[in-house]
């Protein structure tokens, strides 16, 4: 077992960073009680996926950078998602006077 420090950034480093970001986002998504923070966690997860796409595009598909095109589309969809999500949140807040996720149970039972 001899670890030598890599001289360039390996692909696995990007993948590990994206895994950290994604798992943090999942944990925040499950455990946040503030609805705005849930939206922020979703943005973190989308960014983790984008990092993966960009790393693969640069390391494995250097000529036809299709991953970068996908990242552009993901950014577009994320912007639309944030706009609609925050509009839903404002509407909910106006009707229930709270941002506590535990009390948004209109559709539950």
């Amino acid at each position, binding site marked *: 077992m001899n670890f030598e420090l*890599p*001289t360039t950034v390996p*692909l*696995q480093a*990007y993948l590990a*960073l994206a*895994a*950290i*970001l*994604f*798992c*943090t986002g*999942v*944990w*925040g998504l*499950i*455990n*946040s009680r*503030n*609805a*705005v*923070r849930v939206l*922020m*966690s979703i*943005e*973190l997860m989308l960014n983790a996926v984008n990092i993966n796409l*960009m*790393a693969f595009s*640069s*390391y*494995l598909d*250097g*000529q036809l*950078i*299709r991953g*970068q*095109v996908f*990242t*552009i*589309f993901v*950014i*577009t969809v*994320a*912007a*639309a*998602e*944030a*706009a*609609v999500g*925050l*509009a*839903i949140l*404002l*509407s909910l*807040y106006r*009707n229930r*006077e709270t941002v*506590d996720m*535990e*009390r948004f149970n209109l559709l539950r039972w």
Partner: protein
Amino acid sequence: MTIASSTQLICFTVLSAVVAIGALGVVLLPNIVYSAFLLGGVFLSVAGLYLLLNASFVAAAQVLVYVGAVNVLILFAIMLVNKTEDLAAIPGLAVRRLLSGAVCAGLFALLLRVAFTTPWATPGPEPVGEEATIRIGEHLFSDYLLPFELASVLLLMAMIGAIVLARRDVMTTDIVTGEPADQGLIEKSRTPLLLEKSN
């Protein structure tokens, strides 16, 4: 543009540390305003990572869309709904946090295992580097033309949907009597309709 590999390594280490710590801060900090600003920092660091991967166009798009639009939108939402409320205690919250933490750690271990055991076909083809923007333009107007056009429809739908969802429904005339409604009532916020009666 090629940076010396050691500089690249240092930049990657710093940026990924900022991303990881910032993401933890976004999730864990009690004050949500700090979380929103940290989220902006995370977005900027991710844009820096894209620059390290020779993708200047996507880095610019990341800064413009995420930092300029999404983060500002989140800050606006926080300003509009920022009411310090005492959250009711929930039984078993600690257990739930631990359980979900264990699930996330398991997911993390799985992802790491996949990342480090898969024989990736590196080094792949030579990266195009500075020509990436030209390549993206060629892709968007040839083989990805349909998704590109669909994205514009999607953005239009999201815009209309956000306006419809967030606007306050106001009647200009009273439904029952047909008289013009009191404008002073319209200016004030409507009484909440769905306040919980139980608990």
